[in-house]
């Protein structure tokens, strides 16, 4: 049966399927199957070398996980990254998006400056900040010494602040992308709406609160979901700058997964951490989408 012999509907479906199929195969092989494999591995004990030595142990990994104090530290730190991504990072991106939405040279210059960190790989960003923050030879340390300031503890060695330093570094690297998405959203809002509001006597803060923010809601949801899920998966920056230390002070879920699975040779246990994190991310995304639609339900 040739294409000509098929009816229009079948032909359209077949053509659409042939375009989707390669990506579907790629997605299945490189995302779905490893996810399923990881979930299955989370119920096993395996050193990661010989497939014949995988041993099914039921829920033992999860029982151990929920009693593991380091896991809870890692999860808490991960939630801190997410919290800052959804609040501080978004607020910074939003404010700068408002200020830089005009299409002129100055705005263009600053947009490029704020977006530039996105171009750098996370490994390079991590190495760069080690040069700044190293207690022995970092620029920050040298500068503070020159102005006569002596910290009781180096910033990255102080477990009360180390995680926040990493969050700030990550925010510096990531907010440019959020800002760009918000600028695109702002530029899509018709100018006539603001003109009409101005004519009606709305002041700038009123226009911001009653027009800009509601009209930017869909884009903001996308920005927050992207920022939040990326924050859940933070790894390279933490691994390069602090390796999750000192003494687990900056441990996050993914660095702990890496440590247990690869350094500690407990692939099953590492998979249980990864599976738990994936489940939390799924709940977060679904909840976030539900709450964000709450204000726009029709009655």
């Amino acid at each position, binding site marked *: 049966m040739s294409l000509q012999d098929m009816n229009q509907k079948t032909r359209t479906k077949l053509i659409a399927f042939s375009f989707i199929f390669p990506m579907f195969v790629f997605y299945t092989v490189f995302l779905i199957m490893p996810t399923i494999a990881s979930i299955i591995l989370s119920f096993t004990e395996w050193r990661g070398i010989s497939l014949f030595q995988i041993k099914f142990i039921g829920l033992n990994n999860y029982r151990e996980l929920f009693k593991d104090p380091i896991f809870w530290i890692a999860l808490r730190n991960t939630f801190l990254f997410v919290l800052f991504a959804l609040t501080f990072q978004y607020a910074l991106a939003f404010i700068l998006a408002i200020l830089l939405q005009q299409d002129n040279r100055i705005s263009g210059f600053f947009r490029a400056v704020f977006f530039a960190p996105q171009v750098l790989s996370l490994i390079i960003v991590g190495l760069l900040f080690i040069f700044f923050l190293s207690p*022995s030879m970092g620029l920050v340390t040298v500068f503070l010494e020159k102005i006569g300031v002596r910290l009781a503890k180096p910033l*990255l060695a102080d477990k009360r602040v180390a995680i926040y330093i990493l969050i700030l570094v990550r925010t510096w690297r990531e907010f440019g992308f959020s800002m760009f998405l918000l600028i695109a959203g702002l530029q899509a809002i018709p100018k006539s709406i603001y003109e009409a509001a101005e004519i009606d006597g709305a002041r700038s803060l009123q226009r911001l609160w009653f027009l800009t923010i509601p009209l930017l809601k869909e884009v903001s949801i996308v920005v927050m979901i992207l920022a939040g899920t990326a924050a859940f998966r933070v790894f390279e920056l933490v691994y390069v700058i602090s390796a999750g230390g000192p*003494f687990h002070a900056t441990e996050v879920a993914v660095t702990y997964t890496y440590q247990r699975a690869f350094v500690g040779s407990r692939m099953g246990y590492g998979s249980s951490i990864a599976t738990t994190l994936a489940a939390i991310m799924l709940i977060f995304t679904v909840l976030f989408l539900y709450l964000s639609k709450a204000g726009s339900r029709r009655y």
Partner: protein
Amino acid sequence: MRKSLVFMYVSGLFLLGLIGISGAVTISIWDEFAAPPMRTAQDATYEAFQKAYPEINITQAHFQNAPYEWILKVAFAGGEPPNIVEVNPGGDLFDKVRGEAILDITDFVLKRLDRVLMPEVDFKLGGKYWGVPLGDLAYGNIIWHNTDILRKYGISADSLQTWTGFMAASEKVKNQGITPIAYGNKEGWNGNHWYNHLLFATLGKEKFQELALRALIPGWESKLKFDDPAALKAWELYAELWEKGYFSAGAAVDDYPAAYTYFLNGRAAFFQTGGWFLGTARYNAPDFPLGYTWFPSIEGYPGKYGGVITSGVTYALTTNNTSETKEAALKFLDWVMTEDTAARIRVEIGKVPPAYRISLAGLEVDPLLKTQIEEAARTPESSPFMDHLMDFDLCYEYTWIASQGILTGDLTPQEAARELEKAVQEWQRKYPNKETLPSPSLRG
């Protein structure tokens, strides 16, 4: 068109035939020497072998040491490891044997064992041999010093042979505004080394090994504990170095390269690490005024000055070998074990001591290395590293990471000792006898 295709087909067959006739075999080798001078030494080794055996091609891959183990695991799990791998002793070797990933080469090694200087525990497990020494030894417990700083403040190297002398020297340089000890424990292994050497000094060789083996050999009988006073003393002395401000400010945060850069910039008087540092120092700072002493003895404790913590890495044959590649790979291992070339290259380029009895005649041996080799040959006692004598997972969390906890104040020495002892007892409950070990190869 058809004639061209036939011509290409026949030419291709002819070329394949030539390759077949030439008998060239290619073997792959992976190692974790990604930076000079060790990388240069490895490349020179492979080149020298290929000159001697032109019918064997070597394809090599060098990896950074931090990700090397998990890269190997992925290769093993995927069924595509190289023909030969460089293996770290202790837990890494244990893992591969347990995973049935490397071949038992006992018969091969036994015929060539007389030249080997490396401790057998580094390549022998369950009564069988699993690798051959790569070519060099590591002397782990060295304290490097800046001879200019010592001279300037009237500190004699001999005074550093005792703990009291070492502490007095540290206090003296600290009072002059110089950091006594460059130290970066970001990865945790440097802290493990400090604890290891202090424990060796407080216990002496016999008790040190007896204590460590409790978490490697199921059913191992010992009345010693990690929270006994002598063992606890090691953590207490380590904590004291930090409390007195002798470690550099970045101790908990800097990594090994940051620490040695700090030392090689002349900002600290001492740097504790192994003999492998000599090559790094000569490569990065050839004019640096470098000196060394062995780790000091501690007054009132049995460890002797000049005792050496020694270890080395090995080549192992993986299970991914055909009969042809296995024969070629064994030729390479035979060359490493019976010829002097591989070890001489490591000595000359890597500036590390040889793992084999070899002639150093005609070699340009660094004077410091020469002295180290001579002194190590006269050592009153030697032992492998503790993490080669213990289950690695346990050692990692309860010594590597615990050494960070002491620096951050999260652990007291007593807590560190107690947690380690608890973990060892837990391990012994999990593996009460050899039959509980998962791999049959380990039960021998």
